[in-house]
């Protein structure tokens, strides 16, 4: 086993997710199934091989520094679940 239910709990915490107790075992099993399968990559010697993050030969894409109209405050807030005084409202961050 690559990961235990305790590891999965920790990964969930990093991902800002909660896995319910009732699904934990099945979830961990499926997670291990995938990670075990990833072992086949170890058959390949990849020493010195450049990683591909991206297939294009593009790096920096530059443009003239010209100001254009942005999104208005009203429009930016139009999908917010809660708004207060023209800002996004959230519950208390610091106790």
């Amino acid at each position, binding site marked *: 086993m690559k990961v235990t239910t305790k590891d999965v709990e920790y*990964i969930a915490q990093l991902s800002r997710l909660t896995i319910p107790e009732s699904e934990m075992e099945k979830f961990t099993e499926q*997670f291990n199934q995938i990670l075990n399968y*990833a072992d086949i990559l170890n058959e390949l010697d990849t020493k010195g091989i450049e990683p591909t993050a*991206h297939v294009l030969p593009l790096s920096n894409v530059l443009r003239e520094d010209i100001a254009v109209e942005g999104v208005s405050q009203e429009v930016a807030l139009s999908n917010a679940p809660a708004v207060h005084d023209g800002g996004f409202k959230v*519950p208390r961050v610091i106790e």
Partner: protein
Amino acid sequence: MDLYKSTAHELHEKLVKKEISSVELTNNVYDRIAEVEKDVKAYVTLDKENALAQAAKVDKMIAAGEAIAPLAGIPGAIKDNISTKGLRTTCSSKMLENLNPIYDAHVIKKLRADETIFLGKTNLDEFAMGSTTETSYFGTTHNPWNLDLVPGGSSGGSAATIAAGEAIWSLGSDTGGSIRQPASFTGCVGIKPTYGRVSRYGCVAFASSLDQIGPITRDVTDAATVLNTICGVDPHDSTSLPVDVPDFTKALKQDVKGLKIGLPKEYFGAGLDPKVDAVLKKAIADYEAMGAEIVEVSLPHTEYAVITYYIIAPAEASANLARFDGVRYGYRNMKATSAPEMTTASRTEGFGSEVKRRIMLGTYVLSSGYYDAYYLKAMQVRTLIRKDFEEAFKQCDLLLTPTSPVVAYPIDGKMDPLAIYMLDVCTIPVNLAGLPGISVPAGFADGLPVGMQLIGKLLDEETILRAAYTFEQAHDYHKVMAPLGGK
């Protein structure tokens, strides 16, 4: 009149000759939707009022003698992960159930400029993560060829609208096969352009180094027509390529003489349904009879592609989906009393299980201690897979493979995630290498459509369109309507 069965290029002729009006056409397609949508469930949202207003506008243009673009007044369907200003865009997720986008995707802007018509937004696997549409928060789409079967995914809704006559053309997105595989399962044409051909601006990001928007249509001519509109550089997407866009319809020549078609032997091995194999063998023989040269090639790292993808795509997804925190838009748990608790509760309640699995897999492979073993390793293997294609293309002009090793399978949710992942084996390597790939109907196995995939060199959509067109014109497979059977 059954206008809903027609292709965009046929309808364009009829509109220009004033044999039909766009309002008549649009109403005809909505009537068809009213008739079959209860069984197919291809749409998440319909937008009839705006669609008919747009149709009336195009009719006025035609009446005034204005020249119209090939897609003007022709109703299409848009995958619901592509942002449409003012029209709900959900990604088939509870997370975005009520999202009303404040901007248009680049492709939508271009299509609007051509005065086309949007019928509505189509169903997908939640956030495009899946191969069946079963992970949609709004329920599964059914395959018009047999309603008990999956339509494929993740662009299953877009493909089903075409097969069922619920749209004339549609847009999908393809990260690991999500245009080509549903096109194959539903007897449609679907093309994933070269990575960078089409701007990703406004396509809700899943795996940014792999995602690409493309059309699903009834024939190759329509696919080329939609490509003509949606391709091109966009300053909003730093990965959109600053290259000239050819007129893709000019590539549609009924001639494959002298073309070298490579058959990668790894794609015809174990796991390939013998009935699918038989259909493809016949297609290969047809190509040979039409004057193409067939050569066997090898892509030796094919067996490593699926797991490479299922490391890289979730890694990118875990970063992309971090934006859904319940603060600025999307679902929020209103009971949480602190901000961190609100974020965790909103994500836990807003995302379905496949999305959670991929976010966590991605988080794991990127986490300290596992990055080198999984993510870096996968990026190195991605290089090997790219080089396989480079080598193969020294011996041929394009590659021919199955689109999927199987035909459409039952909707029952019984397969485990890894078994479903493995079925993406023919389409995934194409995304990893950034190449263009098209799926075209190649025949039938037990009454179900079989798709043939043609893979081209980087930026060489024209060769695969030409080969696809030549095959299509020599057969009638694309003209057979789905019977809406089963149940």
